């Protein structure tokens, strides 16, 4: 496998792509705003250079649409894509399973369960300014992490298979519980269902800040361990004989990526396939080393998610398509393709 594309160029291209997407996405939508106008509006809000922009022809409505409605949504989508892809990349390595994604640990189901309770019974508690449903989803996700964690230690021995089985069984249990809730509260069925499909339509700046901080902090803690993560992926014995405390590293990584996924899911609902396919696309471009895989997955995940969300809110405007449906439309065929190639043993990565 030859890597023809230079690494700094990939980073550069991904960053330019994100910036262009932010500008582009903030100009499209129900109310048409020119690309250059939205660029100037965004530019005018930059800390130091902002004053250089000519602000005389900005309409108040344009400012509100770009800065208060579209920008937080774009940023929220970007952070969610970044967080889910990073967690996917980490979990695939830590669980040594190329088909692992942030949902295998049951975190998404936990969040959905929390959200379903909040929606169905009308509970509302606001924490960190992220809103009632999101707070409940976050609590559900965090409790699920704890439960899966406890279950995977039953029998005293910690193993990768144990963690996966615990996650899958808790996840199916919670899915049944959500179904029961939806049946009991049939009038809220649609709302619960729409939440589970995932959407960024309820984006606010507090949510964006909340998710941004958690994603960046997790990334900051994960990045220094990239080389150790490579070694861990070759097996516990192999890693320990090379001087790595395999269990401690695995636990730390699972906790960090779980927290990140919990935050993503609680503000946006369940958005599938991003955490699975983005790391695989990046592996094809830049190889399996986590040192490149993780930062590139973050950037590529943000791009993919902003793109999908923009499609979701413009394709059938003014109606919205759940973003989870868009990512799955692109993701599911890719997933099957990947599965077929893994079975054949011919994956080049």
């Amino acid at each position: 496998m030859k890597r023809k594309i230079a690494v700094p160029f990939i980073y550069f291209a991904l960053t330019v792509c994100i910036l262009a997407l932010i500008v582009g996405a903030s100009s499209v939508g129900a109310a048409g705003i020119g690309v250059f106008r939205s660029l100037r509006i965004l530019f005018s809000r930059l800390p130091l250079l902002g004053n250089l922009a000519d602000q005389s022809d900005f309409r108040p409505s344009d400012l509100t649409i770009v800065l208060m409605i579209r920008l937080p949504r774009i940023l929220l989508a970007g952070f969610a894509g970044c967080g889910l892809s990073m967690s996917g990349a980490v979990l695939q390595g830590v669980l040594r399973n190329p088909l692992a994604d942030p949902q295998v640990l049951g975190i998404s189901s936990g969040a959905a369960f929390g959200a379903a309770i909040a929606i169905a019974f009308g509970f509302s508690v606001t924490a960190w300014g992220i809103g009632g449903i999101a707070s409940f989803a976050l609590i559900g996700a965090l409790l699920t992490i704890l439960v899966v964690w406890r279950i995977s230690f039953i029998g005293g021995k910690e193993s990768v298979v144990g963690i996966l089985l615990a996650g899958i069984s808790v996840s199916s249990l919670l899915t049944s519980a959500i179904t029961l809730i939806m049946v009991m509260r049939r009038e809220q069925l649609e709302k619960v269902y729409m939440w589970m499909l995932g959407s960024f339509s309820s984006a606010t700046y507090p949510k964006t800040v909340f998710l941004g901080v958690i994603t960046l902090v997790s990334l900051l803690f994960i990045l220094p361990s990239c080389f150790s993560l490579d070694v861990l992926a070759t097996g516990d014995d192999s890693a320990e004989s090379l001087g790595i405390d395999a269990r401690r590293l695995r636990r730390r990584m699972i906790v960090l990526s779980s927290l990140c996924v919990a935050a993503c899911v609680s503000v946006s609902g369940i958005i599938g396939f991003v955490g699975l396919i983005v790391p695989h696309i990046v592996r094809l471009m830049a190889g399996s080393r986590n040192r490149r895989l993780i930062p590139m997955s973050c950037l590529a995940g943000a791009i993919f998610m902003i793109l999908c969300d923009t499609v979701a809110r413009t394709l059938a405007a003014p109606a919205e398509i759940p973003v989870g449906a868009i990512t799955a439309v692109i993701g599911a065929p890719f997933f099957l393709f990947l599965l077929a190639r893994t079975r054949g043993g011919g994956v080049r990565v």
Partner: protein
Amino acid sequence: MSGRDDFLKPPRQITVEKLTWRPDSACGPVLDHLDCILEEGCFYGIIGPNGSGKTSLIRHLLRLIRVEEGEVRIDGINISRFRRKELARLLSYVPQKIETGIRFTVEETVMMGRNPHIRTFGYPDRKDREEVIAAMKSTGIGDMAAKSMSVLSGGETQRVLLARSVAQGCPWLFLDEPVSNLDIYHQFMMMDMLRDLNRREGKTIVCVLHDINLASMYCDRILVIEKGQVAAMGETSDVLTPSLLEGVYGVSFRVAEASGEGTRMLVPIPGSARYRGEEHRGESLCGDPKKA
């Protein structure tokens, strides 16, 4: 790091005292008050029947299993007092295979051997890369650097893992059945490389083997493990006798002098294997203790 210099000196001797291991899943102790002393510079072969505790022993020596009863000491220092990275600079492990769910290239895999020399949270530097290239050259895998680990044959995988250990730069190498799945050419190539490391670079080799004649051809000293204890230990020619092997394996042997180099071959006699019933701790009765 002052005061911990003793933990980085090449070990002259590893002492095992009354090492006992009773995993929950096995019915009896897998290691049972095992005593032995391994000395620097030798080429050790560990032999013994399936389930006798060979793998468990080297896993304890590498601290892949924590010592619960008895003691393992490196130059008098209890193995539990070493930090993991310190241990990984002294003792290196060549497993039979590694996980390849996430597909790394050969070069990336060999680079992992440098982990004990890279500071926490750091990345490989130029010196690490030079060591890796040298290690790949010396094991004859220089031309496979960019290949994916998942497409390698058994013999190639073993060479890559040996290269990883060479890059690790440890004075002691532990190998768990390095040649069991290899054809005769790759078996001898692997053993020749190990002998080279032992003779030319003075590395101590501790190698679990199933083939008694390979052990007799390459090893200076033999450690025979039976039912979790040392059945015999010493110079190869003293230990590998038909009577001892018959006692351990339950198969009769005769000695055949191979012409030329004066190598003694031990030839098992067909039809001599006798059923040893309950006293033989078979894997089918207790589950595989290695996987416990």
